[in-house]
C-alpha cells in the first residue's frame, strides 16, 4: 500500500529536482546483478579477464547502472508502472574497486512536460566519482 500521493503534473516546473539517490556498489552488487539478469560476462566479476581485454578493472554492468538510476524516479512517482519510456546512453564505465567499491549518484530533474499526454520527462544526471556515466538518460513518467 502506498500512502504517498502521486505527483501532480500541473505542479511541476522544468528544472525542478524531483528525486536524488546515492548507490554504493560493491563487487557483491555485481555478482547479484549477474545472477538476477543472466549477464555472466566475466569482465563484471574477474579482474584478470577485465585486464586481459584492456580494461582498468572490473566494471559494473551498464544495465545495472541503468536499472538503479531510475529507482529514485520510481519512488517519486509511487508506482513502477508509471515509467512508460526509459532510455540511456552508456558514455563511461563505472569501475568497481574490490575493496572500496564505487558510489554512483543520481539527480532527477524535470526535463519537459507534455500536458496533453499527461507525461513528465525526467532527466537523470548519473555520475560516479563526479564523472558522468550515462548520457541522455530520460524517463517518461505518466502522471494521468
Amino acid at each position: 500500500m502506498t500512502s504517498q500521493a502521486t505527483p501532480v503534473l500541473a505542479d511541476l516546473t522544468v528544472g525542478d529536482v524531483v528525486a536524488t539517490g546515492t548507490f554504493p556498489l560493491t563487487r557483491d552488487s555485481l555478482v547479484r546483478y549477474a545472477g538476477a539478469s543472466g549477464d555472466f560476462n566475466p569482465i563484471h566479476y574477474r579482474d584478470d579477464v577485465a585486464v586481459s581485454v584492456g580494461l582498468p578493472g572490473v566494471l559494473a554492468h551498464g544495465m545495472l547502472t541503468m536499472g538503479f538510476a531510475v529507482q529514485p524516479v520510481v519512488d517519486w512517482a509511487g508506482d513502477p508502472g508509471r515509467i512508460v519510456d526509459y532510455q540511456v546512453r552508456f558514455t563511461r564505465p563505472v569501475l568497481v574497486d574490490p575493496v572500496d567499491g564505487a558510489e554512483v549518484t543520481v539527480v532527477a530533474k524535470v526535463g519537459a512536460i507534455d500536458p496533453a499526454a499527461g507525461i513528465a520527462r525526467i532527466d537523470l544526471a548519473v555520475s560516479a566519482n563526479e564523472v558522468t556515466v550515462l548520457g541522455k538518460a530520460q524517463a517518461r513518467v505518466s502522471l494521468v
Partner: protein
Amino acid sequence: MSVNPELQGRVFPPVAPYLVGREKVREFARAVFATSPINLDPEAARAAGYADVVAPPTFAVVVQEATLAQLLAEPDAGIDFSRVVHGDQRFSFSRPIVAGDLLTATLTVASVKSLGGHSMVTAESRVVDAAGAHVVTATSTLVVRGDE
C-alpha cells in the same frame, strides 16, 4: 570483417516464450536496488491494481536477451562479439511487465550504420503478451568497433 549492411530490416523468428516468475521479479528488483513495495509485495501490487508484483522497468532486458543472442549468432551478420560495446538502450512500454505474464519477443534490425570505421546496429525487440498485445519494445544500439 565488418557488419553486413543487408541485415537492415531483417526480422528474426520469435524466440521461445518467457514466463515471468514472481520470485525472479523480486530477485531482479533487489539487484537493481528497487524499494517500491509494488515490485516486491504481491499484496501491495494488488492494492495498486496489478495482478501480481510489477517488474522494474529494466527487467525487460531479461526478455530481450534471447533475441540479441539470436542476432549475434546470425551466420552472415558479421558481428564479432568481442568488439561489441552497448551504446544505447531504450524501453518503451504499453504497460508494465507483471509476474505471470507469458511474453514473446521478436527482433527486427532497425538500422545498420557506419561511423568512423565503427558500425552501429540498432535492434528493436518487440515484446507481446499471451494475447498478442504489445507490452514493451526494447531497443539496443550496439557499437561494433572496426579493425584497429
